């Protein structure tokens, strides 16, 4: 019972560091995984140099989706938005440090999909899976 649920995942799920909402924010985006009803919203603040200065996520979902959101936001703070646009599926998997099957992969990647929908300035429902490649 441990591979999928590494300590860091359980820990981030129970005590997330970046949970909340930012008001005001420069970027906000939300989406859900219809398969399991997981829902994530991400708010970002961006400084004058175009770097992410603050980030927060809200919503609900399984440990994998929530922990990946928390770890992902930690990793983007201080990064230029242009660099955030380049993040890929593999970056999230590296953060989580686990292998995932096709079903759970969707849980892990929901936060990346939301983040990318935000930094690309997409409208509701426009963030597709191709964003994560």
């Amino acid at each position, binding site marked *: *019972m*441990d591979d999928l*649920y590494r300590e860091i995942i*359980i820990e981030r799920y129970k005590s997330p560091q970046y949970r909340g909402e930012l008001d005001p924010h420069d970027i906000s985006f939300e989406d859900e995984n219809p*398969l399991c009803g997981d829902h994530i919203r991400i708010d970002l603040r961006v400084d004058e140099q175009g770097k992410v200065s603050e980030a927060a996520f809200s919503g609900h979902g*399984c440990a*994998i989706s929530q922990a990946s959101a928390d770890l992902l936001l930690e990793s983007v703070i201080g990064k230029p938005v242009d660099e955030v646009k380049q993040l890929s599926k593999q970056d999230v998997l590296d953060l989580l440090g686990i292998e995932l099957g096709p079903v759970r992969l969707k849980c892990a990647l929901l936060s990346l999909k939301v983040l990318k929908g935000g930094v690309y300035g997409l409208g509701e429902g426009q963030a597709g899976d191709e964003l994560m490649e």
Partner: protein
Amino acid sequence: MERTILTATDFAKVRADFPILQREIHPGVPVVYLDSTASSQKPSAVIEALDTYSRRSNANIHRGVHTLAEEATALYENARQRIAAFIGAKIPEEIVFTRNTTESINLVMYTWARKNLQPGDVVLLTEMEHHSNIVPWQILAAERGIVLKYIPITADFLFDLEAYRELLKLGPKLVAFTHMSNMLGTITPAKEIVRMAHAAGAKTLIDGAQSVPHFPVNVQDLDGDFMTFSAHKMLGPTGFGVLYGKRTLLEAMPPFMGGGDMIKKVTFDGFLPNSIPHKFEAGTPAIAEAVGLGAAVDYLSAIGPDWIIAHERQLTAYAHERLREIPGLKVYGPAVEHKGGVMSFTMEGIHPHDVAALLDQDGIAVRAGHHCAMPLHQKLGLPATTRASFYLYNTPAEIDLLVSGLHKVQKMFG
């Protein structure tokens, strides 16, 4: 239906009939399969019937005159007869082969309902329908302006007969309802629902996807106009389902899909449809799968549907009792005597996906999500639940494993 009393030795034989139950999910961790409500497992008799058909008799059916074509046709139509007998249909022609319950319901929508329903006509559904018995009617509502009304469930998760009585005053043309909820396990009083619908002048469609596999069902006794079910939930193969319809109704319905086998005659100007049930079976059907379902109903008949539901009730009662041990666990569904072998539950502070994924590490297969019943989950204020479900091959020892698995989940997230 003949009653069979199984001894412990008989039951051990039943277990041994299902090769997949011998499988280890991880080294040294055998499978504990508690997801039969989604798809059941196959006994050797079904696997062998599928295999033997492919090895010995494979050919296209109905028009060939060579030996293999004759054999394949005989096997396909013989399966229809056995399936008809299994649910007590008057004649085999009342059994239409489809891909699954979903297609069976869509067939009724695209043919019977499109011909018979007008804008403003009311169709009654229940709040505990699977998406397959909601979305087709929503499609027709958008296309034709029919009105959908939902018969509520009571606070005890039962079919609300009083509310139904009131809704019947709207003069619905069709009452389409589940015989057993795939999320709550609630068994509906189908015979009474049909009787009341008919008295109000409505036709009925019974979604038997969860009832036909698990307890005795006799379509003549129930008197429903249509009944639908899927092979893969009753020990048979995927991609195969059944629509039962009363002969007079089927005969008056337009065809479903156009193509080969559904015609008597085709000219450049038009076609004459075939007689029932072939009128609804366009194109080469799933022949091996029909043979497989035939073998599955033989197997279920030999065990006896009465025994199966009694066995599942025992397991469900035991599971209810054991799951109480787990703090923060809540089961959604009626009292055991009103339900089949389905346990949908939530654990406080733990997402159903995590519960299911952690149980999988112990080889325990359960389902997590909305179980294709999103509106029902919304009504209950739940994004998702975890569901364990039981069938004829499950044992109390497997429920013990489920409970110890859940204790571990609790410890990990607690």
